[in-house]
């Protein structure tokens, strides 16, 4: 067993209000630069919708992620190993700027400088790439809140496998429903971006699992952009380097939550350490689709188990990190309560960002609405909910409904348990029966309620000590280091000629 620690995340979709504060926080801190205008390391999508870049989930189009071909081999779908040789000059599956959007600004000067005339001068949109006037056809969150549904929502790749009736229902005016999907890089265990980089510029940090791109080693071969199935590596068209979410590691190293986590208005974001067995990554990534979610969970180790603790210490994991793992909110959501699920696990990158699937309103047309005390099935509205179970399962269960249903039933049981406790319009007996049927207890339900609703900053973000003092450059005599390698960048990172 080779134990490593990973800073992991949970996004509680039931709480996301789609305010985009997270995206703006990230943009202001990291991507407000030339060449990065179009990048949203954090973006929030409306589901159903085609997302950003358009239809990123459609791997027929983008060939992102891994494929496991019957004979037990894991292959990069786009340009792995040998395929890179003929494809290095032109990457056949790479998205272009048109799949994202062309960034633009407005020609404000025209408001002041326009020659006198009979009409009001306007500030026309101009491209931020070439400065030419553009006819804006796409932008960040172009389909926010179901805008342009017939063009966007209807082409959501997750609608696959839904009946015609379910699709119609999703777009009929009175039953329209949507939820938000905030996305950042998942800092995957079996990262396809890392595996695909011909230069070996991408790497996972051993101590915290953050996936980074070495800007000095990136040579713009663009393989990672095609390989990441979540399209979370971006090509900077100006510097000629790929870039991605860095999980605000400079903030984490000083004990602060990443900017998007810190600013999240709905407080939907949780961050904490998971200990996992790095020896089994490949074995798990090869499992059949329906075993992937459980397989990934089996990688995560119990930080309270003395055997695990002993081995973790042998593998060089600091005591403070183990302690953080024991208090990790992510461990609770993913392992204890099992109500957080990885997105699109069928891409086989083993993402370490998990989502609590959202509850949705029940069908308005049902005569008996919220709960039928008389019915035997107290969870009827979960299968009848306006967001078809199959849709959520395509997102969070590789098409298999079991895990999603389990998570939703538990969430509902927690709600009715709390209702019985505080409002009292649900009788205790029904609430208890629901808890039982949802595989939970009063204690667990209270714990879920507390971490969901009453959580403080410290509850949500259990940031491990990052031990930067152990970094190689700090262990060296500074003078020696300077003599050997100089001061690093001379004159700052500049686009090459």
């Amino acid at each position, binding site marked *: 067993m080779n134990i490593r620690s990973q800073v992991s995340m949970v996004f509680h979709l039931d709480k996301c209000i789609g305010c985009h504060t997270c995206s703006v926080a990230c943009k202001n801190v990291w991507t407000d630069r030339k060449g990065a205008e179009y990048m949203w390391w954090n973006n929030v999508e409306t589901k159903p919708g085609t997302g950003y870049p358009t239809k990123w989930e459609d791997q027929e189009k983008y060939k992102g992620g891994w494929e496991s071909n019957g004979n037990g081999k894991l292959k990069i779908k786009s340009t792995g190993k040998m395929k*890179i040789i003929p494809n290095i000059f*032109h990457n056949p599956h790479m998205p272009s*700027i048109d799949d994202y959007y062309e960034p633009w600004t407005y020609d404000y000067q025209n408001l002041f400088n326009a020659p006198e005339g009979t009409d009001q001068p306007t500030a026309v949109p101009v491209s931020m790439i070439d400065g030419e006037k553009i006819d804006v056809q796409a932008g960040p969150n172009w389909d926010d809140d179901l805008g342009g549904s017939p063009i966007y929502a209807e082409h959501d790749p997750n609608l696959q496998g839904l009946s015609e009736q379910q699709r119609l229902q999703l777009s009929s005016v009175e039953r329209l429903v949507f939820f938000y999907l905030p996305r950042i890089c998942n800092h995957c265990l079996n990262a396809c971006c890392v595996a695909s980089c011909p230069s070996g510029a991408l790497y*996972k940090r051993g101590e915290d699992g953050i996936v980074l791109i070495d800007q000095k080693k990136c040579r713009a*071969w663009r393989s990672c952009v095609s390989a990441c199935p979540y399209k979370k590596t971006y090509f900077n068209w100006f510097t000629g380097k790929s870039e991605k979410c860095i999980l605000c590691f400079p903030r984490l190293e000083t004990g602060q939550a990443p900017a998007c986590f810190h600013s999240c208005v709905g407080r939907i974001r949780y961050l904490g350490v998971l200990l996992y067995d790095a020896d089994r990554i490949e074995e798990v990534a090869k499992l059949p689709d329906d075993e992937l979610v459980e397989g990934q969970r089996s990688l995560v180790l119990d930080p309270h188990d003395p055997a695990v603790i002993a081995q973790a210490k042998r593998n060089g994991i*600091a005591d403070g990190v183990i302690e953080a793992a024991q208090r990790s909110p992510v461990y609770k959501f993913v392992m204890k309560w099992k109500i957080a699920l990885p997105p699109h696990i069928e891409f086989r990158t083993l993402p370490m960002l998990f989502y609590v699937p959202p509850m949705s309103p029940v069908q308005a047309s049902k005569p008996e609405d919220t709960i039928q005390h008389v019915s035997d099935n107290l969870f009827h509205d979960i299968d009848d909910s306006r967001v078809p179970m199959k849709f959520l399962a395509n997102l969070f269960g590789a098409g298999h409904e079991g895990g999603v249903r389990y998570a939703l039933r538990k969430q509902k049981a927690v709600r009715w348990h709390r209702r019985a406790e505080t409002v009292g319009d649900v009788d205790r007996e029904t609430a208890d029966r629901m808890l039982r049927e949802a595989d939970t207890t009063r204690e667990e339900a209270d714990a879920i309620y507390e971490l969901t609703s009453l959580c403080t900053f410290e509850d949500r973000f259990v940031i491990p000590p990052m031990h930067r003092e152990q970094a190689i450059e700090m262990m060296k005599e500074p003078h020696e280091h300077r003599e050997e390698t100089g001061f690093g960048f001379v*004159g700052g990172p500049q686009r090459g*000629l």
Partner: protein
Amino acid sequence: MSQNFLDQFLFVALPYVCLFTFFLMTIYRYRMQSFSYSSLSSQFLENKHHFWAVVPFHYGILVVTAGHLVAFAIPRSILAWNSHPLRLYVLEVSALIFGLMTLIGLVGVIVRRLTHSKIRTVTSPTDWVLFAMLLVQAASGIAIALFYPWGSSWFASNLSPYLWSIFKLSPDVTYVAAMPHLVKLHIVLAFVTIGFFPFTRLVHLLVIPNPYLWRKPQVVRWYGTRSKI
């Protein structure tokens, strides 16, 4: 006398200056500005014409350059191969085909960069100079192949010794002095390109990703060596 002086300048002094610049500046740039080592791909901004320009250009120029290097490195084997006329034809025709591919691809690259305004913004003055040089080089190469045939043989027998003499630090220009002007132009421009190389996007050639095929898929970096922690 002046002809001799010119030959000395073009085929002795210039090559040394260019080769020296090449080695010094590529290493300097790699050490001090490794961030600037990038292929600066523009595929992201324009994905359709890219394929038809960049792919033929790269395959063409790689094969042609490799051919020159082989003829330089093992001239005798080339001559032996060419001793049979059929094999000589095959070699000459395929060299010409790849030369044409280079030229067509290069024209495609230039047209693409001229016509797409987004690509124009990521094309530096250096790029234009480089493209002009490569264009003349590719065109002169093809012209040589057409007007002075059997280049693979005379390159191996006459130019290879000259190039070796440069590398052995005892330059001997008798071989090149007798060459036609077109060939001389091609040689001079080749050295100028080598000298210009470190100041252009060509440096991406030096960082072609070789360890990729052997390395493990996942790359992990630790703060220090793990045992020290």
